[in-house]
């Protein structure tokens, strides 16, 4: 069984020193090892952004696609080879601005992949514009007088979209984050993990300290029941989404692949391409 070191490659990330994304990477590597994966059975599909570079920093199959499309690519990979563990990952702009529709639809489709967003409330790679996660009033390069739109709530949107695993964590909490990512990987169906991963260069508001101060762990809420959707919504609304932990999980919903009529357990990619001659004849005969 592979150790987390085997998920490392020799590439030095080009993230700024102190960037929150470093621990997200470490956490994925640890979780992958902890759940017993081999590097060749993991595929990491990333978006474009500082965060999107993560696919190149993990020793696994990697696909660094186009901006906002990590989820459809990842779903395609999983459908083609359900024996792989597929992790999609990217920034908050990638997933909640240009990729928002895919995010909602991946959630409702419920293919068994894990989606990890490095949510820094800003556009890092393009040098500090507002993101859909920037709070109202937030001053960025593109909102010099403060943002006049309110931040979206990935957690509430996920639950409203029918997601079956919805969690939030902080990149400063390597241990907690790793545990959540492990559970996300093990969840059968689409799992969504939003990570507060500070951009130390462009976001001087939502810093490590800010999150430590503002984010409440669900473990602090007595009898919190992650299978209770209404409660989950209420807690999110009451806490302005600033909670960490597994917010909602539905283990009763089958993954998409398990609902596809006639879809085999064996990877589609491994199945024979050639069509049986008798079957071909039958298909042709239907047009005669």
């Amino acid at each position, binding site marked *: 069984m592979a150790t987390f070191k085997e998920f490392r*490659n*020799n*590439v030095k990330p080009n993230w700024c020193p102190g960037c929150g994304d470093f621990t997200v990477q470490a956490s994925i590597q640890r979780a992958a090892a902890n759940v017993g994966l*081999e*590097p*060749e*059975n993991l*595929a990491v*599909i990333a978006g*474009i952004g500082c965060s999107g*570079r993560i*696919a*190149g920093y993990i*020793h*696994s*199959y*990697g*696909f*660094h*696609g*186009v901006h906002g*499309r990590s989820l*459809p*690519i*990842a*779903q*395609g*990979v*999983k*459908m*083609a*080879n359900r*024996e*792989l563990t597929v992790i999609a990952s990217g920034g908050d702009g990638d997933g909640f601005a240009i990729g928002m*529709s*895919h995010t*909602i*639809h991946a959630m409702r*489709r419920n293919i068994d992949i894990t989606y990890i967003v490095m949510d820094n409330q800003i556009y890092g790679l393009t040098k500090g514009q507002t993101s859909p996660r920037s709070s109202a009033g937030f001053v960025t390069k593109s909102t010099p007088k403060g943002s006049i739109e309110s931040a979206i709530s990935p957690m509430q949107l996920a639950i409203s979209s029918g997601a079956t695993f919805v969690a939030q964590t902080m990149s400063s909490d390597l241990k907690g984050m790793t545990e959540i990512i492990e559970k996300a990987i093990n969840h059968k169906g689409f799992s969504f993990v939003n990570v507060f991963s500070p951009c130390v260069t462009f976001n001087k508001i939502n810093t490590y300290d800010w999150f430590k101060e503002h984010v409440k762990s669900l473990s602090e809420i007595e009898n919190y029941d992650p299978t209770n959707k209404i409660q989950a919504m209420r807690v999110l609304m009451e806490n302005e989404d600033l909670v960490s932990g597994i917010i909602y999980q539905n283990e009763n919903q089958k993954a998409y692949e398990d609902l*596809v*009529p*006639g*879809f*085999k357990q064996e*990877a*589609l*990619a*491994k*199945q024979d*391409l*050639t*069509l049986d*001659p008798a*079957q*071909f*004849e039958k*298909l*042709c005969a239907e*047009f*005669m």
Partner: protein
Amino acid sequence: MISQLSWKVGGQQGEGIDSTGEIFAIALNRKGYYLYGYRHFSSRIKGGHTNNKIRVSTKPVHAISDDLDILVAFDQETIDVNVHELRKGGIVIADSKFNPTLPEGKDARLFNVPFTSLAEELGTSLMKNMVAVGASIAVLGLPVDSFTEVVTELFGRKGQKVVDKNMEAIAKGAEFINTEAGGNLPEFQLEPADGQKRMFMIGNDAVALGAVAAGARFMPAYPISPASEIMEYLIKKLPQVGGTVIQTEDEIAAITMAIGGNFAGVRTLTASAGPGLALMMEAIGLAGMTETPVVIVDTQRGGPSTGLPTKQEQSDLNSMIYGTHGEIPKIILAPSTAEEAFYDTIEAFNLAEEYQVPVILLSDLQLALGKQTVETLDYNKIEIRRGKLVDKELPETESGLFKRYELTEDGVSPRVIPGMKNGIHHVTGVEHNEVGRPSEDSKNRINMMDKRLNKMNNLKTANPVIINAKHNTPDVLIVGMGSNRGTIEEAIERLENDGLKVNQLHVRLLWPFPVEEIKPYVENAKTVIVVENNATAQLANQIKMHVGMHDKIKSVLKYDGNPFLPSIVYKECKELL
């Protein structure tokens, strides 16, 4: 006795006009006639004139006929709109219910058949289509029981009684004509066909069946006219071979999911039309840059924008060649018949994997939806070539990294599918080095650009152009693409009858543009006429760009939404000569 004729049925959309044509055609197909159909319809669900024109012949046909022998009309509009096509002495079979009239002076015979009331007598006016079918077949002098098989297949699951009723309706229609006509109509008697079983299908079916035969097992797609039938066929059939279709949230999801599927080793396609293809441009660039095979079907329709979604056009050529920003290798294949569409789809998957590039299968509405006879497809001609796909175990490497973008002589690198030990690699749409890491190094950049673009220099595919060059020094070379081949052929026959020496060249491989294959034919022709369904002479301009000889290149263009007819091509060519 005649060897071919043209029949058309028309009425309001949603009234079963299509199925009337369908039943009529299938019965004739079963008898061994060759058929070629054209549907005129609108972008709405119910209402509006629609018609279905079917050419029937004892020999292969691949063009809509200029004129019409028989017109079946469910309303006066059908007569008004279509009667000009009716040849002298042609027949109109119309529902007596609407008191049909022919325009004054029209040399045609009108049969007033009580479609509706005969059907109602049998229980439901819905069967008026069957009465019309019966009337039609009586004109042709074919026996009513030609339909027993088709009708049984269609209505069998509703019980024998329904079958019988429908057969009765056909018989009533036939009977009515026989009585009315008082004996058979010699000019409409079709020579018997050869009785051979042949397929009868639309181009979209052929593409979809080709995909199944090619080993495609996954299709993410978003509905759009006139591509949806490909998806709808595969929704039914892929599960039978272990695969599946996902109806995605949009075309961007469709193409990127298809890229994911191919990256992970499954032959995956998507299909759409102009607006969808426009949305896919960024992702097609990603496929080109990451060297991920993918097959994309573009069923062209009237553009620009939403344009004329149910009309014929060939105006996406430019955007398919050039639509992606930056420069990628890419292959575009345009079949001209349903039969070619089947084989070309298979070839598209092979080329995609051999050259590790996106392949666009460029269809057009007339090919996509026009139903036509296809000679039996040959199982033995189905060949699966996966190129440099690594299927053996790989040795361990020191770096642990697989050179997915190894610089090779032909530009194509070995390709490994995720899941394989020692094959681990990273692909990215950012410029990258041999192991797939982002690189801004200028030497590497040049190597990688050359690698990717040069792949196309070695492209090998059978018949990049289809040539019928009888003459060494022809008066004219007529060039076309897509579904226009058969129409051009018939026009050429007429031009040759006028004493002109005409060669034909049909471009099947539209990109990389087969300059060397085209050049000699352009050179030896006095005039070159390029026939295409668009307004800006896109194909002609490719020849100008790549081959030159501007002065002799002329264009016959049609962009009114209707397909070419042989007579139009003939006439416009004549005018240019």
